[in-house]
């Protein structure tokens, strides 16, 4: 791979709406600090039905997003190291280690440590690690943990599974209610669900616009612009951001403007990105490689359509149980094959994240299955999302080069 060029004629195009992201992030940070000071802050996992705490007027922050920021600042090894000093193994999830490390030494992590939580809300639809991670944070901060248990599904959600998760959502409402002495108002949850749905629909529109050639967005664009739909869905400003974003994306499509200047090869990305090395995508852009789709940002596409509290709870039960990582290998393979077909992709890159077992174990098998079904080649590269100590750039370059040679 060649190195990223520093001049104006970069091989990729920067989105105008990216500047709005900073404003949103700043606002989100201030609101979180205020919520914490007022005793109203919940830390939530990225797959948590955040509509409920938001509708019950809690501030929310996402430690995974903070982990991504730690990674992007290239301080992952140092911050994860603080957790390792406490005895947490280097083999464990680097989002968790970054979170534990920055909770232990917040003064050393100004951009990436989160305000003190009053409660910790975890949903295991993305992995089993989140509970253990939040238990560790609970031990450090004294904030109680609520786990919404969403047992993994095989193809369909059976009635007893629905009933169990529904009871979990009811217990969540009771938990927040008793902890903060408040109730869930029907009008408010409907309003939040509508806002969440509005943002999600806009996000889906932007993702689907990438079916066009050239693709208006590359992987790094989506990884950056997914932040509000993860952290602020259910708020007015989140929906407003995506209105501007979709306008720019669709404007690019109308004018035939691609995310990269010379699109030659279209690939699928699987897994969380290496936040510390997002330039990986820009370097490949210089060789005409674009990633119009990925399995990670497509995870935030569950849509709420409920109209009253009961139907919204039912929606929560279905939408949050059926997320990509809670559905097993067959569903992952189906999703990848579907994306390859829908986005007319030439190949795929699977990032095997050493510290994310739920996402990564099975990739060696699914790589074969996807190639068998679609006929397109793929490659598995190994590293980590936050901890750059286990990211071997030279080895990754060799593997990606081998894939590109097949496609050029």
């Amino acid at each position, binding site marked *: 791979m060649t190195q990223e060029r520093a001049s104006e004629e970069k091989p990729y195009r920067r989105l105008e709406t990216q500047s709005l992201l900073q404003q949103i992030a700043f606002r989100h940070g201030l609101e979180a600090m205020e919520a914490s000071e007022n005793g109203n802050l919940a830390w939530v996992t990225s797959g948590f039905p955040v509509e409920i705490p938001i509708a019950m007027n809690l501030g929310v922050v996402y430690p995974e997003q903070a982990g991504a920021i730690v990674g992007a600042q290239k301080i992952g090894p140092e911050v994860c190291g603080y957790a390792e000093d406490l005895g947490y193994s280097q083999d464990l999830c680097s989002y968790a280690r970054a979170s534990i490390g920055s909770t232990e030494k917040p003064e050393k992590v100004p951009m990436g440590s989160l305000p003190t939580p009053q409660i910790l809300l975890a949903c295991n639809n993305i992995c089993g690690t989140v509970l253990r991670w939040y238990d560790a944070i609970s031990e450090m901060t004294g904030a109680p943990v609520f786990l919404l*248990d969403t047992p993994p599904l095989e193809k369909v959600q059976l009635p007893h599974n629905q009933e169990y998760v529904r009871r979990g959502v009811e217990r969540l409402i009771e938990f927040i209610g008793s902890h903060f002495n408040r109730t869930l108002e029907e009008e408010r949850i409907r309003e939040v669900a509508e806002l969440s749905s509005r943002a999600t629909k806009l996000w889906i529109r932007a993702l689907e616009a990438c079916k066009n050639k050239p693709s208006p967005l590359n992987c790094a664009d989506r990884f950056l612009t997914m932040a509000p739909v993860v952290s602020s869905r259910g708020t007015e400003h989140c929906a407003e951001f995506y209105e501007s974003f979709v306008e720019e994306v669709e404007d690019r499509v109308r004018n035939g403007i691609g995310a990269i200047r010379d699109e030659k090869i279209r690939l699928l990305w699987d897994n969380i990105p290496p936040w510390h090395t997002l330039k990986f995508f820009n370097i490949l852009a210089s060789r005409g490689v674009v990633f119009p789709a990925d399995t990670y940002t497509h995870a935030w596409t569950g849509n709420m359509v409920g109209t009253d509290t009961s139907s919204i709870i039912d929606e929560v039960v279905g939408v949050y149980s059926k997320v990509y990582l809670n559905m097993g290998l067959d569903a992952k393979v189906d999703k990848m094959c579907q994306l390859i077909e829908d986005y007319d992709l030439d190949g795929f890159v699977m990032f095997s994240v050493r510290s994310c077992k739920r996402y990564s174990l099975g990739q060696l098998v699914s790589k074969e299955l996807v190639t068998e079904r679609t006929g397109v080649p793929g490659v598995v590269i190994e590293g980590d999302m936050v901890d750059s100590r286990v990211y071997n750039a030279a080895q990754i370059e060799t593997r990606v080069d081998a894939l590109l040679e097949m496609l050029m």
Partner: protein
Amino acid sequence: MSYEGVIEQSAAGLKELVESGEEIIGYIYPHVPLELFMAHGFTPSLIRALPGASSGYEESLQTFACAYIRNLYSQRANGQFLTLSGLLFPANTCDSLQNLSDIWRVRFHDDKVLRLTYPVTRYSQDESTTKFLAEEIRLLSEKLSRDYNRPFLAESYESAIDLVQEFRKGTQFLYSARVVNPRIISYSEVVRLVRTFLSIPTMSSISDIREAVSTVQVAADELGLLDSIESVRHAILSGDYSGVRLPEELETPRIVIAGGMVEPQAIAALMHEIPNFSESTLVLDNLSFGFKVVFTIPPSKADDPFMAMAKSVLSAPGEPTHEGLSYRMGVMKGLLKNLSIQGLIVCEQSFCDPDQFEAPSIEKAACELDVKSIRMPLDPEFSDRGRIETRIQSFLETLG
């Protein structure tokens, strides 16, 4: 008998069963409703990690997959598995086992893969948890009836409850007896009996347990320890240690082995190799394949069978794969404090999320009680055996 000898013996026993026409359902996670399989006419057998299966997984699993699942996969890939009628995987216990079952279905498509999904919210005091697991067990029962044409027989179910309960009562007594007087029976012998039953749950395995119980009972009676043993058994089962009555003169140091799915017999074999180590130092384990299986409450015959089996499975103490770190640490502290423990060895399976997340909290809990502890990363192959033995030896020396 050496660890390798025990493995060979149990493999031979299983082979004999298969040859005599028994149908074996293997299982991986230790907390399964054994009674269900027996009620359908199967012999459930706990699959163990083997020391000699260190490669073979590479085509399907990355090196960061937990050492336990790598070992199981390698055994199967290398043809070291017996012919099983089915293999039961747990779901929702940990990410590695969750994904392994999917991989297994693809790679070994002739194998009959069964799955039982567990609720994580074990300590929520909510009936929905038990109902969920009961329905999972009922669905599994339907599948066994349908796919194998072996119906659930009430009579077999009741006999199975008796058989498993005799195993538990007997081994609970032996475990408790060792807490009171670790010299009364060796740890290796107790865990051999546990392992043999879990591998081959038959009357013959029970006979060995009965014999051991009888011998220990006589010895304990002579030493006047029977009440004390019962007080320990009751305390462990109830989680309330206020009634524990240990003898005044206890041999020290007394250590506990904690961890998840680590093979107790392998630990016993490892300790055996350490110079100047007396097995009486090791008072109790807190491992999934030992203590946690043994101290599980039996299903009540009066309840609906599926609800009863669900309640039983959920009564297993302290799995790190379930909700409730603070609860588990409370129980751990109760155990360390009230059973006069001076040292704790925390075993962690390499790349095991539940073990590795819990280990710092266990260390902290021990430290708060001034109990010395050491962490021991392990894999089933003991690939770093020399270093492990040296570390344990040094640790024991610090206990005096």
